[in-house]
């Protein structure tokens, strides 16, 4: 984002929004604080379930993206990430809502992940067994969470956390995630400030 010249000396904190402050004050029930490393991709787009014609990705990249998001959220008694339209969501994040620099950085990381995972697994990540995919990503996640050493000095842990961020945001703002995994009320009606959790049963989507 371009900033006014005089603003260049201001830190990000000085530009903190009232919404952000109130979010931190706890007002936003579904709210969360974004990790600073991820702010470059904090943009928006619309998850579209169903057919997806990749824009940012070639065929192998698209297959890898789908395999990663479905490892994060596979189909269980609720839909998978790809069934909820997350690959298209990530595509749109990159093409509609990100700067070229952010897009290029992401693509470089994706390519590094594809090369490294094929080296480690002997087959492209998308062709590995789902249990192997899950174990592999979990090891990377541990590194990203400061609980492991796997691939520590590569861009891959950061790439994975970007993928997880985009997948989680996309999934829980999709109709499938918001209504089937979480609880969503478009028109709640009168506010009740102090009720039993079991009367709601699941986390509110918004």
């Amino acid at each position, binding site marked *: 984002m371009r900033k006014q010249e005089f603003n260049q000396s201001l830190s990000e904190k000085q530009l*903190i929004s*009232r919404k952000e402050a109130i979010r931190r004050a*706890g007002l936003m029930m579904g709210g969360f604080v974004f*990790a600073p490393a991820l702010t470059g991709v904090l943009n928006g787009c619309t998850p579209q379930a169903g057919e997806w014609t990749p824009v940012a990705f070639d065929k192998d990249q698209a297959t890898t993206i789908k395999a990663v998001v479905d490892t994060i959220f596979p189909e269980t008694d609720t839909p998978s990430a790809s069934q909820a339209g997350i690959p298209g969501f990530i595509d749109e994040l990159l093409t509609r809502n990100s*700067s070229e620099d952010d897009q290029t950085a992401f693509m470089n990381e994706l390519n590094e992940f594809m090369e490294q995972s094929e080296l480690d697994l002997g087959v492209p990540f998308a062709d590995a067994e789902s249990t192997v995919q899950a174990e592999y990503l979990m090891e990377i996640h541990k590194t990203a*969470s400061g609980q492991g050493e796997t691939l520590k000095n590569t861009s891959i842990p950061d790439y994975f956390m970007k993928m997880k961020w985009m997948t989680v*945001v996309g999934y829980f703002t999709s109709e499938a995630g918001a209504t089937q995994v979480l609880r969503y009320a478009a028109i709640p*009606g009168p506010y*009740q400030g102090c009720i039993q959790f079991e009367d709601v049963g*699941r986390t509110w989507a918004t």
Partner: protein
Amino acid sequence: MNINGQAKQDMTYDAIVVGSGISGGWSAKELTERGLKTLVLERGRNVEHVKDYPTMNLDPWELPPNDDIPFEERKHYDKQMRTGYTVKESTKHWWVKDTDQPYEEKKRFDWMRGYHVGGRSIMWGRFSLRLSQMDFEANLKDGHGVDWPIRYDDIAPWYSYVEKFAGISGQAEGLPQLPDSEFLPPMELSCVEKELKKAIKEKFGRVLTNPRMANLTVPHNGRGQCMTRNLCSRGCPYGAYFSSNAATLPAAAATGNLTLRPHSIVHSLEYDDSTGKVSGVNVIDELSGEMLKYHSKIVFLNASTVGSTMILLNSTSDRFPTGLGNDSDQVGRNVMDHHFLAGADGVVEGFEDKYTWGRRPQGYYIPRFRNVDNETRDYVRGFGYQGGSGRDGWGRAIAELALGQDLKDFAAKPGPWTIGMLGFGEFLPYEDNQVTLNHEKLDKWGLPTAVFDVSIRDNEYKMRKDMANDAAEMLEAMGAKNVTPYDRPYGPGQGIHEMGTARMGRDPKTSVLNKWNQIHEVPNVFITDGSCMTSSGCQNPSLTYMALSARAANYAADQLEKGKLS
């Protein structure tokens, strides 16, 4: 509501109201209800209630996540996006494009605004708080600024009057520093807010009260009650919060006396030396660029604080070479806002079996407690807190070391309760906090642009220490964990409460408006938007603009009936 043509015979009215936002809507309602043929000039497009709220019913999956605008569009909103929450895909149509509406900053000033019928009454925060006698006496007592020409008793009946029409929900508390409104039933507090309320009452004798807001908790005057969707700023299909579009403009239209003219940018007011009054309003048609002149007996300036100020400064004549009503040189000075972004938050344990229903559209409030009852801090005036609470949501799944069904299960359980509060502090009037006109840089209609030179000072910085520390102390008193005070840099204007640039006062030498919001030297011009404010208080100001507008409009109508002003 009829949109008028431009035939000459249609160019004269009893009254002209410049602006259709929260104050202009009230001026229009009162003047038309008093039988005056009234022209409302709005510089932006028309917005019809409900019909022109295109995003009001969209679900999250029908919008971009985080509701962001495309990267390529950001360049149009460099300044409007500084607040972080204003320019979203679902609300961007309510905010000006900075590329169309430039202004300059000697120091950072966030001038957040929208040009359309209804103005910011569509996107406002809806907190509705009365000023108190303490606020109206403050300047006189501590010597900052000039004395208000009115006291609480002058405005109290008008607060009641506008509240009964607008519909304000809240809980009466009987506090002298924050008088009660005419309340509709309050929205409930959450479990943890009730705990905080109890704790600060016991330990400090301080009050925590339910949100005081212009959201209806019961049907009211033909408008529906709040469904707690918390999507207010997209426009409400139920008319459940107060806006010009939902409330005052329909009432004005119902009289048959209203003419609303969108796309009408006021260039200047024309002063007539022979009568000592303003005789015409010069308007640029936003679409055609054509110059038009409208006439009326009285003019209400409700173009927003900075908008009205710019019109005054651009209305020069032999009698008023530096701007209409500017004998005092106070027009454009004393820019105030509310400084905020200091407070604290924490985590509350012990309510893991409790939750909430609905998305309450505003938070709890802790009225001012500093520098009341003869207390003396190392600063003057005080602050109030807006706060909120809730259980952490699905966002915590991002960091959780889990995948697959485990991650879905984790997200489906809400996280810990968090609670926080954010201080809103009084901003003293400083004469050199100023907005001026730049005649070198014109906008696309050929009008001079605004230049801001505004900053907070020692009093505000000292107050902010209390805003952070007192918040932390109160959260600790309720047993909250991980209590984190903060004092984040604040940019003037960021509160979107800019005010004070054509202040009311007793003395024409040091103020612009008298006790009836009339320009001292030009009795047929009234200004009742935020520019009239003599001090800022720490209370959110819109309710005061409503009350002052209704009061001044009825005074003006009285005067006209007595054969004065015309």
